């Protein structure tokens, strides 16, 4: 484990009892990947591959059947204030105001702080997510996008080492989603926050992530490969699509979601796949002609760009 590795997922497996009393269902197994300090990692996969379960295990809300997660050289055995979660459905307490929701989190982090101190600290994060003026509103008075902003502010206000986001924008309309993505990007890069986020939106992953972990379909989902985002970090939603790497990466991801995620078993036998070191690819660095060919090619056509993980 290198000095900069913040999260190391090792041989993770989670099974659930079968609903009809038969054999246990394995949602995912053999999951290995790492997240470095300050890195933004997105996990993409179809629904049913256990993305939320995986995130809950990282958060300490759920326990793996076997294997484990190591965060800062310690195994995760429960929840921690060092790992903040932004939930899919915002999960704000509807009887508390915006301020009280965030203050609830801050008081948990700093039980010894005075009321004024907590208030000041909360205000900083309310301003950060552009909700100044809505401090005393109840969640029911806010739009979906504003609610999720509060959810993000609540997670950031405890100044965690790692932020875990579970499809935070999936319930929002496209315009709101776009502006929230931009905000999250600037906040996270400004603070070099380590982020692990689940999504099923390719453009969201390409905009936000340094590394995109691709998961195959469940049951028995695995990490198929890890795609490195080779576009510069100062990319924005407005200029990203003009970058030369944009379409090769995008085509590669679509190819994965549409075809490869379901046919991974066949792909497995065609090359030596090591779950401990899932192949790392940089589709952005392939020649444009190759990228177009690759989108129409049979699965496994990108082997020439695959680089074995060195970690």
């Amino acid at each position, binding site marked *: 484990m290198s000095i900069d590795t913040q999260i190391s997922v090792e041989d993770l497996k989670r099974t659930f009892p079968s609903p009809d009393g038969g054999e246990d269902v394995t949602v995912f197994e053999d999951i290995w990947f790492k997240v470095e300090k300050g890195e933004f990692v997105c996990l993409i996969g179809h629904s049913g591959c256990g993305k939320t379960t995986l995130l809950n295990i990282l958060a300490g809300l759920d326990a793996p059947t076997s294997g484990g997660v190591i965060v800062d050289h310690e195994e995760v055995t429960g929840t921690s204030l060092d790992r903040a979660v932004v939930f899919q*459905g915002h*999960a704000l*307490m509807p009887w508390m105001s915006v301020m009280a929701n965030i203050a*609830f989190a801050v008081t948990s982090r700093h039980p010894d702080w005075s009321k004024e101190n907590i208030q000041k600290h909360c205000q900083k994060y309310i301003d950060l997510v552009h909700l100044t003026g809505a401090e005393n509103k109840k969640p*029911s008075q806010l739009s979906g996008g504003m609610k999720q902003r509060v959810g993000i502010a609540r997670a950031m206000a405890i100044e965690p080492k790692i932020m875990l986001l579970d499809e935070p924008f999936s319930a929002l309309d496209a315009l709101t989603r776009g502006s929230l993505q931009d905000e999250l990007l600037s906040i996270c890069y400004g603070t070099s926050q380590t982020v692990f986020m689940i999504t099923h939106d390719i453009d969201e992953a390409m905009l936000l992530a340094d590394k995109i972990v691709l998961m195959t379909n469940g049951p028995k989902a695995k990490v198929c490969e890890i795609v490195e985002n080779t576009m510069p970090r100062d990319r924005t939603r407005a200029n990203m699509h003009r970058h030369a790497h944009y379409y090769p990466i995008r085509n590669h991801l679509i190819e994965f979601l549409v075809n490869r995620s379901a046919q991974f078993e066949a792909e497995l036998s065609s090359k030596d796949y090591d779950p401990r070191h899932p192949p790392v690819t940089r589709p952005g660095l392939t020649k444009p002609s190759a990228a177009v060919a690759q989108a129409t090619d049979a699965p496994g056509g990108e082997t020439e760009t695959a680089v074995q993980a060195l970690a």
Partner: protein
Amino acid sequence: MTLSLRMRAAVLSVVLFLAFVAIWELAVISNSGGSGVTGMSAEYAALMGATAKGASAMPGPFTVGEEIWKHLSDPFYDAGPNDKGIGIQLGYSIARVFVGFVLAMLTAVPLGFLIGMSPLFYRALDPFIQLMKPVSPLAWMPLALYTIKDSTISSIFVIYICSVWPMLINTAFGVSGVRKEWLSVAKTLEVGQFRTAIRVILPAAAPTIMTGMRISISIAWLVIVAAEMLVGGTGIGYFVWNEWNNLSITNIIAAIFFIGMVGMLLDLGLAQMTKLVTYED
């Protein structure tokens, strides 16, 4: 010009009330002309008063109105054990309901929390609750009188036993139904169990708990009248029974009116408190 729905409903209410009073008055007048019973001893006739002359004991609405006004203008007089103002009688009943209700609340809410949070306790206590819940609270009265040997405490016990179930069941239901993601938030923030119970579970379940309290107070007010008829002494239930023995239908109808009013106010009070803890999701 069309009146608002509220105004139209109010007008209709008044019309219905006037029609009710008119029919009542007409029914009483047409009944009062009956011939007297012949061959009655003079002594018995004196005891029976107007009824002996064939008049019905059923009063008209204006007699009842007058009686209600009389009670309202002097509600707190005390002229001996069988002649107390309606305010004093209602006060006794309200006090018993209040004490029984508060004691029930103090047991039902913590126990409901336990049942709601622990599937083990839920399953273990469920058979007892299911068995005890349908028992009429008055069935407990003889047992209470035998063991407690005090009529007032016995009627409080009966109120307690009838108030406890709706609060217990609603608290357990509200607590077990708290959304998992709110508990996950508390867990990821490493909030302790006690603070989670006070800051998350209690406010989340509060509307359901308050609904249970509202059901309880309504049942308690129904039961206290019957309980006081049984144990006697004081209270609005005893007042009704006493007036039945006096054959004062006027006072019985007045008492029915007051019982209804107090019940309505109790429910209204709890409805207002429910509003305070209700949240919009």
